[in-house]
């Protein structure tokens, strides 16, 4: 198949048909910020942070690069005044939910986002869906899923599955940008199968090496 030639940040880039703009940029070492993207997972397009400017036949539009397919002769700009502004507001909105998430703090610095711009609604989850999709697509255990919709959407562990599967995995804890996946798991453990942890530790004293990440004390910021 012939390569598709497009321009990203002034550089001529070759990509295969079916690739996304994000993949084309990444293979050239051009950085586009992402929150809900994971190379092992299907594109999700949930966080919108990877938004870029695309110029095609004289028209400029703003597209989500992790789901937008490459096309011949398009001109992509990964940063522009407007792109930066969009990312800044997105980060500000997410920080209302997870004000101390390290990735967000870094992004806030880069885009000049004000973490106190929107009223706090500290749900700690930014609904990036990484935990849900990882458990479904990679581990195929479906121990955690989405519930509800719109602004009330949240993730929830299914206790019946979690009690069997999660102890030996815990991989979503490290993928989660906010540590909420771990918190949500521990909460379901406490509610639905308390004490299981002690039993497992007694039965398999050396194993498993626990991957629980210590939750850092939140930096005190104003």
């Amino acid at each position, binding site marked *: 198949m012939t390569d598709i030639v497009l321009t990203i940040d002034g550089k001529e880039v070759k990509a295969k048909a079916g690739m996304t703009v994000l993949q084309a940029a990444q293979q050239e070492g051009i950085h586009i910020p992402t929150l809900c993207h994971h190379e092992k997972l299907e594109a999700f397009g949930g966080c919108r942070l990877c938004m870029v400017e695309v110029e095609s036949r004289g028209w400029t539009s703003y597209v989500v690069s992790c789901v937008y397919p490459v096309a011949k002769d398009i001109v992509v700009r990964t940063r522009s005044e407007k792109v930066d502004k969009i990312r800044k507001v997105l980060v500000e909105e997410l920080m209302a939910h997870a004000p101390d998430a390290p990735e967000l703090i870094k992004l806030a610095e880069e885009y000049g986002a004000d973490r106190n711009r929107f009223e706090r609604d500290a749900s700690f989850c930014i609904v990036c869906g990484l935990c849900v999709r990882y458990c479904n697509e990679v581990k195929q255990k479906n121990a955690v899923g989405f*519930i*509800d919709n719109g602004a009330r959407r949240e993730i929830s562990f299914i206790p019946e*599955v979690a009690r069997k599967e999660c102890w030996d995995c815990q991989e979503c804890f490290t993928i989660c940008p906010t540590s909420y996946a771990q918190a949500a798991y521990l909460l379901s453990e406490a509610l639905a199968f308390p004490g299981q942890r002690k039993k497992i530790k007694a039965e398999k004293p050396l194993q498993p090496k626990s991957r629980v990440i210590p939750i850092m004390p939140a930096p005190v910021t104003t």
Partner: protein
Amino acid sequence: MSEHTIDGIIEKYRGQPGSLIHALVEIQHQNHWLPREVMQKVADALQVPFAQVMQIASFYKAFSLTPKGRHEVHVCTGMTCHLRGAAKLRAKVEELTGLKDGETDTDSRFTYQTGACLGSCSIGPELIVNGKHYGRMTPEKIEDVLKQYE
């Protein structure tokens, strides 16, 4: 509704993950709500992860994850009904039943829900009980309507 009917619905879709929504719609229609055990049965029979059944069931407002009362009372809050005084109807229904939007009373008599544009603007503002439309409603008439439902 009998377990028998629910099982019948589930059997019809056994092994068909793509029919998840159909199965849930039919069970909701028969049973008026989706108990957790039933969703687990659906998951097993249709070979869909339980988490996905939960996701669908909690996503659409048409499904109820809590038991419903014997009678479903709706007040339309669509634009037309609103302009014609739906807020007063809501206040009256809430006063008479003691329920807030989405709630069911302890003796399972009523479930009260608001909804936007229930499709009969010309007779608004309206109150709907068990699918029966009561048009041109006034707060004064509500008590007599609800009395008919025990």
